[in-house]
Structure formats: C-alpha cells, structure tokens
C-alpha cells in the first residue's frame, strides 16, 4: 500500500523528498519524514488502529498528541519493542514496525469483541462485584483470567540493547512547552541573560501553531516560530530541548523530563548516543506553557473510528497535509471548530457543522457558509453509525431544556466526525506542583489557581486561548520569571501582530441526551481507553459515590495510561449533572507523575550491569581473583569467602583454611574493617562516653576491645581501639559499621558535646591490612620485619608497635579474631598487594594459607567471639552477650541508663549460648528456632534462635551460637529445634568451644 490517497498535494511540515517505509499489522505503507505513525496511516485512509481495553470495540485515532487514549501501538521489534506507544506521537523512521494491541486474531475480526455485546453485563464496579468470592479464587482463577484479557501490549523479554542517560541540570527559568506562549516566554526570559531551558514534547517547537493557518506579523505562523528559534539559538544561555516531555513536577522546583533522543531513528543506529535521556532539572523559576487538550463530546457511539477531535483534524490537514476523510461532520459547543471546518473544506472535503449553540459566531459562520458549509445551529449529534468506521450520524434539534430533542432527527452520511467540546488547559504539571486547580464557569474548564511553587502558567495552560493573549501572557510570564530569578533587561519586546479574534462564549454542554428519554447511555463513551461510559459514571453516582476520587476508582475512568487527559473533565461534568451540583463542588482527581509514561530504561539509566552498584575492592583484590577466591558481598565490598583448590568443595576449602590457621599460618585480607583516627585533648573522655567500658586508663601502646550501644542500651557495633598517643586513638569497627560508626561519633560530637575537643577522620581506605594468625605467625613476621621487637613481652596481646615489614612502614597490632596468636599488619594501601605477595612467598615454608570470611567466621565462633549484626540484631544488650563485665559502673555512657530499664533487667532475656547438636555432623541452619515444647505443627512457643552455625574442622563437629531465653541458666540442658521434616536436639553450653583460657591468642 504505497499510495497515499489522502495526502494533500502541497503544504504541511513533512519532507516529501524523503519517503519512509514502515509496516503496520504486517501491511507495508509509505509515509514521509515528519509524519507520525498516525498521520502516515491517515494518509492511507487507515483510521482503525486498535481495540478497546474492556469491550474490544474498534477504535481509531482521536487526537494528534500526548492525550491520545485509543491509538496505542506496539512499536519496534525484538529487544527494541515498546508497548502502548501513542501513534499520534511516534515519529516515522525507515523500517518502523507497528502492531495494534488488544485484538485476537486480527484487528478487523476480534474474538474478544464478544464482550462488547455483553457490555450491559460489565457495569461500573464489575470486577469488585463479581470476582469477590471465594478469596482463594483470586490468585488461581480470576487474576490470571483478567490479566490475560487485559492486554495493552507486551514488554520485551530480551535485555535492552539501548543506552539511557541521565542529566542533572540547573536553570534560572524552565519553560515547559514551546507553543506560542512558551516561545514568547523563552524569548523574553532568554534576552535577560538568564539560563533558560525550553522543553517541548514535539519533534519541532511551535505547538498547535504548526497545525494552523494563523498569521503572525502578516506572515504564516511558522515563519514567526523559525525566527523565534533563531533568536533563542543566538542566546548562549538558552537550551532548547525538542522531543522532551516534562513528566514530573516535584518539591522545590525539581522537575523531571524525558528526552527521546533516538526514538525517531531506526533501532540500533544511535551508536554511543542514548535512546532516551532523563533530565533532572532544578529550576529557580518555572513557566508552564503546556497548552490545552480538546475535549470530546459525549454522544452515542462517539468512539467509532473516523471520529476525532476537531483540533486534531486540523493538525492532520495543515501540519501533515493529510485529508482525514471525504465528508466531515464538525460538531461543537464553541468557536474553535469553525476554523477546523473551514480548513477541512478547503482541502476538498464536504463539511457540515453541528453547533449545539443556537447562535453561531457570525463572522465565522459567514466564512463557512461562503464555502457552502451547512450549519445546524442548536443541534446535537444523537448518535454515530458504522462499525469499523463512522458511516453516518443522526442529529436533532435540542429542545428548550436541552435535555431532549424536538422535530425529526436527520441523518447525514460522513466518514469523519470532528468534535470539539472545548479546551482543557493541561494543568497536570501545575497540579503536581501542589497547586490547586479551580473550575472556571466562564470558560467551562479547570484552570490553575494560586501558585504554590516558584511557577507561573501562561497561555492555553492558564485558560487563555486567543493567540494574541497567549503571546502577551507568555512574554510577561517569561519576563517576570527571569526577574524573579534576578535577571532584568530594560525595554520590552515588541508584541507580534495577530489578527483580532472575538469569540462567542462556549456553551458548557457536555453530553447528548439519549435518543428517547430513559434510553441507556452505555455507548456514550467518556473514557475511551478504559471503556467507561456515561452510564457507568451515572451508576456510580446513583450507588452513592460522591467523591470524584471514589468514582474514578469505581469506574476506572481516568485510570488508563493516558490518565484521562481527554476524559476527566467530561466525567466530572457528568457526575455534577447527575448529582445536580456545580462541577466545582465535585472537585478534581489528583494529577500524578508521570504526565506520559516513562520507560524503565530511562529510569534505570546506566545504573545497570556492572555499574548497577559500586563494587568496592581492596588493594589485594587482584591476587584473590588470580588465586580463584570465591567472593562474598559484604555491603558493597567484595571479600574473599574461601579459596577453593582444584576439586575442593566449599566445606573442604573452609576446613583446610581453618586447620591451617590453628596449626600453621592463616592469612586474611582485613582491609575492609573500619578504621577511625580520633585525636584531641578530650579524645579519651569522648571514648568513655561512647563505649560501655573505660578508655581513659588505657596506656599508649595498648589496645582495648570496646562495645558500643545505642541510647536504647542495645549493642550496635564493636571493635578494638588502640591508643596511639595520649591524645590520639585509632578505632576499628566492623566492615559494615564503618560509615555508621563515624557518623555516630560525629553526631554526638557536633550535636551533644561540642565542648569536647576531638576530631574524627576515616582512615579505612588509607591502610591495607593483612592479618596473620597461627603458631608460626611470629616466626614469619620476624623474617620480614625490621625496627620492631615482636616478642611476647615487647609486643604482648592487645598492644601495637611500628616498624617496617618488607621495607614498608607498618603498624602491627596484636589483636586476634581467630583466637590464635595474631599480627594485624597495616601498611599504606598502595603497598597492600606487595605486602600480601611478600608474606605469601616468605610464608610458603610455614604452610601459609589464605583464608576467607567463612573460615574467619568459623574460627571466631569456635572462640565464641560475636559478630555485631549477626549475633546481635538491635535487641541485644552487653549483658545478653555475657559481656556484662564490660559495662562500666563508674561512668556514664551512651545507653547506660537504658540498661537499668526493667525490660533490660529481666532474667528471662535472650542470652548468648553455645549449642552442640547431639549428632556432631548435623549443622543447624542459622535462624533455626528453639522451641519450648515440640508440637505436631506450628505455632510453638519460640524461646530462642540460632545466630551462627558451622562445622568446625578443628573440633571435628558442628558448633552453633544462639540467643536463648534465660540461656545462661540453662547450660547443660537439652533443647529441640524443629526443622522442616526433622527435629534436631542439642545441648546448651557456654558460648566458647576452643581454648577457653585464651592461652593461644596471648602466645
């Protein structure tokens, strides 16, 4: 189908030199560059493009823009495909492939359309009333059924091959919409030197002027647009973004816009350029020049293909050079349809006008009659006829009350109905900005009320429709916005000359009465996308729904992907008529972002794949990689979990690593532990207030293990702190707690005790740390270390010293998390890998073995050392852990008072215990519950749970730590842990399984 039978011979904003081939539902078509899919299909006379959501009624192209509820297509193939694309906005590109949605097996014959015949059975609230009972049926039967019937396109299943970018920008003035008002605003703001962004959703700026024959300064409007753009381009601080929809207006003038950078290009041709770019804009001032959407009129079968908005028909004629049919009936309650009728007539269509007002506008009517257009004043459309395309309409004279008809109805044959129910300002962004929208009875529409944010509306978006006013309001808004942002320029811009327009008032008239009193209104469609009819809305009102928010949810009106851009005002008007109140009393639903749907790709941006989240690595990472480490994620860190040798299982590797650490040397990359440098005259006093135990008396050169509680008395982190000098400490924290603990110290220092002289600096990343443990650790280190005595007297357990290791300046700290004699070697990070490789080489003859976090967990559990965050969960006090001796009685500290609360002193609190399973080979799952009494099935009274559980190669059996109610009094008791399909019995013990006296670690 290459013949564009309905393409006009001249005019339009299309490039006739560039034919573009595309296909729709498997048929091949040709359009021109500059076409949308909708305009190109109309050029071939194709109006039927989809089926409706609920009744599967044939639907055509209603609009020429973002408000389109019907013409939703699946566009693109394979991984590039996108559902629910508005044919009225999708620009044509070579090879574009589009298919209609909601139909099976084909658009012309659709099996689902049978539900249309049953429509009386699907009233408002149908789902709520029908699929209520029994509840178990929801998941298994109703929901899948409804989902299958719902349709609305499909999302791609392949990974998205396109790039999506985000941009964070600031501007003085953001102008949304580049129609007449928006261009005028950008011009007047831009000339002050302010940073101006002008975002417009269309492929070229100009708004509805592109589709009009209006003259500005005695020349076609497009010339004024071109010169305005040229002026804007000459301003270095002005950025014009076409194909960019501002989709959200958030707090403090933060707006989000989607730029469709490459959607109009054949897929896969963008190279490194993104397909879409999400702009996050902080604007000091905003001008909303978002224009208006035309309202449909509500009459029987007003949803038939071939029935479109009058303004859209005009766009297709003037902007796209498409004649949308042969014979048109233009039906209206206002003046704006007259120029549309004239344009349709001038392009060769036969035209009739049906004006519900009894007095049509004189000059416009005269111009129409000159073209032999017959005008039926005081008439309304009773119904449209035809199925896949409108064929005929019935019209009749309205009676005096305007709730019925007089005289004999007439029939007119036509293949196009162009309707205009008046204009709705596009107040979506204004409403998102928290502005209240108000009903204007004079204009018969909702308009922006008072601004809440630094924002102003201009032009049609503000309910100002005549062009001359749009231009001047836009200009003033731009100037005022720039001034409010601190930019002024003397002298005004000249007002462009526009032909005066004097309009007859529109009539607030929404819906055609039924053909006879009492006839159903179930084919008078209000919301096309969700198939909501006037009957549904009236039913909701009759059933007692008063709030528009409730009517919306009950009927689903305005809940489609178009969010009711064409339907909301009509719905409100019908509610108000049914209830006999003013539309202002019905109120409006809340407009929520996004204005038009966003892709997940745009929201994710480049935060995908390896950039989805930072991977933090230590200086020794590449050694771990090269030596086959399996990694564990600890926060964003990658830590070696275990190092499997060829043929080893995880348990094999962990066993080998655990044995090596107790019998030879184990080496652990401990770089990730948090390290905080603490300095100041009051550093010791500060630590005394933070830790449960005392630090004042700690001698320089020595280290102390400390427990930190929240003010609620619960343990939240632990670690060893070394006193480097009288006024200088180095605190270590858990890996996960590093940032939190630093923030905690800063918070107390800055907000509660600013008088204490103390500074905190993170040095976590400054030092790489290799920790060696085991009977030969000292011997190895003595080979490599210089300038430091490593003997147990000179450098005892819980002390530190400085020297050189392998020539690198190092701090050696004698702490132990494994329970073995250990040396923690800290060197500047850039030397970490060298330190590690040197230790590995020199340690080979001692059987040095790298061990990962799993072996570390086993080794420390053998010793009963806790891991804050694993054996504690924010409800555990020091005493619960058996560390009551670390709670100072002689000083206050954070959380101390809470430990005296009755709940913290209960004898039956959960306390840390050891568990030894009766079968030594059974390893309890962490999280397993200890119950009071085993019953055949839950619920059972739970008295504790397993926090850590491993197989210990050193002990040749399983071990576990658990929190158990009154646990300290239960050592020796037998408890039972019910697991799926089995029960495990265990004996309660003290939470230490190895070297209870700690002789090994002090060695």
């Amino acid at each position: 189908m290459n013949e564009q039978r309905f393409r006009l011979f001249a005019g339009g904003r299309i490039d006739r030199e560039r034919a573009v081939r595309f296909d729709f539902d498997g048929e091949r078509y040709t359009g021109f560059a500059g076409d949308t899919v909708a305009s190109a299909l109309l050029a071939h006379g194709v109006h039927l493009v989809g089926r409706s959501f609920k009744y599967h009624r044939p639907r055509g192209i209603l609009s020429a823009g973002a408000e389109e509820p019907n013409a939703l297509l699946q566009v693109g193939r394979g991984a590039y495909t996108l559902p629910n694309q508005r044919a009225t906005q999708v620009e044509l590109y070579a090879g574009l492939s589009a298919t209609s949605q909601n139909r099976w097996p084909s658009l012309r014959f659709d099996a689902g359309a049978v539900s249309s015949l049953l429509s009386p059975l699907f009233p408002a609230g149908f789902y709520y009333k029908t699929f209520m009972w029994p509840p178990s049926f929801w998941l298994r039967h109703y929901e899948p059924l409804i989902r299958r019937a719902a349709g609305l396109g499909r999302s791609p299943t392949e990974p998205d091959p396109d790039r999506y970018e985000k941009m964070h920008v600031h501007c003085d003035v953001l102008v949304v919409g580049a129609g007449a008002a928006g261009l005028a605003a950008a011009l007047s703001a831009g000339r002050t030197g302010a940073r101006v962004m002008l975002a417009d959703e269309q492929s070229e700026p100009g708004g509805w002027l592109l589709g009009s024959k209006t003259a500005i300064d005695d020349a076609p409007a497009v010339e004024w647009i071109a010169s305005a753009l040229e002026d804007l381009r000459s301003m270095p601080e002005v950025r014009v973004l076409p194909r960019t929809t501002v989709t959200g207006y958030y707090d403090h003038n933060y707006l989000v816009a989607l730029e469709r950078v490459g959607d109009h290009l054949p897929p896969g041709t963008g190279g490194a350029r993104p397909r879409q770019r999400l702009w996050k804009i902080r604007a000091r001032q905003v001008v909303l020049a978002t224009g208006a959407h035309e309202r449909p009129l509500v009459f029987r079968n007003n949803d038939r293909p071939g029935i479109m908005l009058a303004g859209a028909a005009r766009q297709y004629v003037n902007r796209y050079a498409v004649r949308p049919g042969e014979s048109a009936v233009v039906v209206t309650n206002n003046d704006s349809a007259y120029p549309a009728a004239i344009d349709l007539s001038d392009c060769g269509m036969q035209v009739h006008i049906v004006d519900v007002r009894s007095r049509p506008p004189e000059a416009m009517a005269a111009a129409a009659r000159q073209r032999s257009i017959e005008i039926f004043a005081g008439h309304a459309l009773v119904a449209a006829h035809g199925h896949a395309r409108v064929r005929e309409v019935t019209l009749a004279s309205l009676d005096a009350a305007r709730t019925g008809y007089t005289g004999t109805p007439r029939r007119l044959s036509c293949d196009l109905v162009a309707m205009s129910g008046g204009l709705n300002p596009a107040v979506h962004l204004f409403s998102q900005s928290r502005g209240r929208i108000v009903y204007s009875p004079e204009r018969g529409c909702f308009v922006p009320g008072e601004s809440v944010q630094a924002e102003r509306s201009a032009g049609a978006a503000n309910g100002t429709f005549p062009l001359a006013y749009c231009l001047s309001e836009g200009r003033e808004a731009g100037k005022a916005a720039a001034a409010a942002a601190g930019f002024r320029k003397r002298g005004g811009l000249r007002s462009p000359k526009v032909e005066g327009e004097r309009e007859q008032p529109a009539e607030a008239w929404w819906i055609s009465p039924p053909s006879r009193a009492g006839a159903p209104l179930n084919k008078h469609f209000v919301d096309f996308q969700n198939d909501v009819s006037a009957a549904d809305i009236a039913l909701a009102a009759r059933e007692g729904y008063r709030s528009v928010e409730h009517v919306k949810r009950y009927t689903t009106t305005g809940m489609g992907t178009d969010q009711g851009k064409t339907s909301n005002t009509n719905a409100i008007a019908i509610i108000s008529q049914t209830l006999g109140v003013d539309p202002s009393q019905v109120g409006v639903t809340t407009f929520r972002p996004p204005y038009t749907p966003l892709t997940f790709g745009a929201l994710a941006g480049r935060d995908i794949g390896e950039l989805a989240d930072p991977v933090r690595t230590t200086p020794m990472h590449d050694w771990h990689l090269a030596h086959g480490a399996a990694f564990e994620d600890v926060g964003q860190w990658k830590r070696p979990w275990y190092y499997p040798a060829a043929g080893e299982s995880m348990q094999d590797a962990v066993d080998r690593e655990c044995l090596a650490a107790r019998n030879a040397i184990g080496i652990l990359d401990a770089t990730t532990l948090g390290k905080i440098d603490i300095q100041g005259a009051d550093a010791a006093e500060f630590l005394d207030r933070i830790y449960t135990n005392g630090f004042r008396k700690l001698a320089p050169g020595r280290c102390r293990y400390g427990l930190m509680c929240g003010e609620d008395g619960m343990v939240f982190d632990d670690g060893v702190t070394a006193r480097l000098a009288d006024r200088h400490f180095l605190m270590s924290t858990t890996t996960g707690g590093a940032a939190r603990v630093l923030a905690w110290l800063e918070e107390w220092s800055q907000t509660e005790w600013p008088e204490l002289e103390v500074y905190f600096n993170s040095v976590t990343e400054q030092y790489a740390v290799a920790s060696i443990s085991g009977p030969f650790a000292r011997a190895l280190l003595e080979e490599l270390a210089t300038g430091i005595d490593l003997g147990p007297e000179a450098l005892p357990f819980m002390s530190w010293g400085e020297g050189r290791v392998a020539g690198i300046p190092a701090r050696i700290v004698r702490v132990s998390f494994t329970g073995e004699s250990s040396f923690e070697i800290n060197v500047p990070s850039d030397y970490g890998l060298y330190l590690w490789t040197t230790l590995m080489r020199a340690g080979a003859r001692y059987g040095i073995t790298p061990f990962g976090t799993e072996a570390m967990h086993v080794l420390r559990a053998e010793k009963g050392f806790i891991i804050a965050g694993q054996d504690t969960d924010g409800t555990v006090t020091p005493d619960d852990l058996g560390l009551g001796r670390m709670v100072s009685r002689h000083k206050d500290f954070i959380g101390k008072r809470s430990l005296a609360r009755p709940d913290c002193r209960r004898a039956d609190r959960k306390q840390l215990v050891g568990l030894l399973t009766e079968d030594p080979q059974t390893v309890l799952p962490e999280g397993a519950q200890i119950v009071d009494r085993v019953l055949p099935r839950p619920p059972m009274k739970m008295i504790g749970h397993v926090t850590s559980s491993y197989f210990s190669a050193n002990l040749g059996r399983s071990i576990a730590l658990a929190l158990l109610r009154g646990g300290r009094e239960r050592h020796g008791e037998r408890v039972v842990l019910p697991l799926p399909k089995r029960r495990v019995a265990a004996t309660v013990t003290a939470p230490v399984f190895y070297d209870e006296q700690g002789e090994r670690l002090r060695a």
Partner: protein
Amino acid sequence: MLLIHCPWCGPRNEDEFSYGGEAHIVRPAAPEAESDAQWADYLFMRTNRKGLNLERWVHTHGCGRWFNVARDTVTHRIEAVYGMGEAPPVQSRGGG
C-alpha cells in the same frame, strides 16, 4: 527532591543529607537521676507535628556538618536553617 540550604555549602539536593529527627531534644545531664518514665520520654517520645517541625539534618555527602531545619511537613516549605545549639528563629506549629 527537597533543596536544602546547608549553612556552609549552600543549596544542595536532599539526597546529600541524612535526616536526624526532631531537634532540641536535650540529653539529660544526669541520666541516672531520671525516672524510667522521664528517660522513656527522652528516648522515645517525639512530637511529629503536621505543620512546621524543627528537625536536625546532617550534610553527609558534603561538609559533614549537623544543623537544624524548620520544615513544614505538609508543604515541605523550609522556613529557616540554623546552627546546632542556636535558638530556633521560628516556632514550630501544627497539630502534635
């Protein structure tokens, strides 16, 4: 995304900051002397007004300083930003 004026770094996006709860809650000088009820009040009870709240924020991804903000929880309007230890330049208001 609120725009919060850090007293040192100037206006920055909300996601650079961390929220620190209600401001002007003073830690008792002698916690041991507090009754359980008084301590619970300090520890747990917050006003949570629907209206203008005085609250603490810290510029986590900036200078790291704590400061106070008077913010309306209905409109998100920020009426004042002031230093730790300073008296609020506006009074909180709204239902508790």
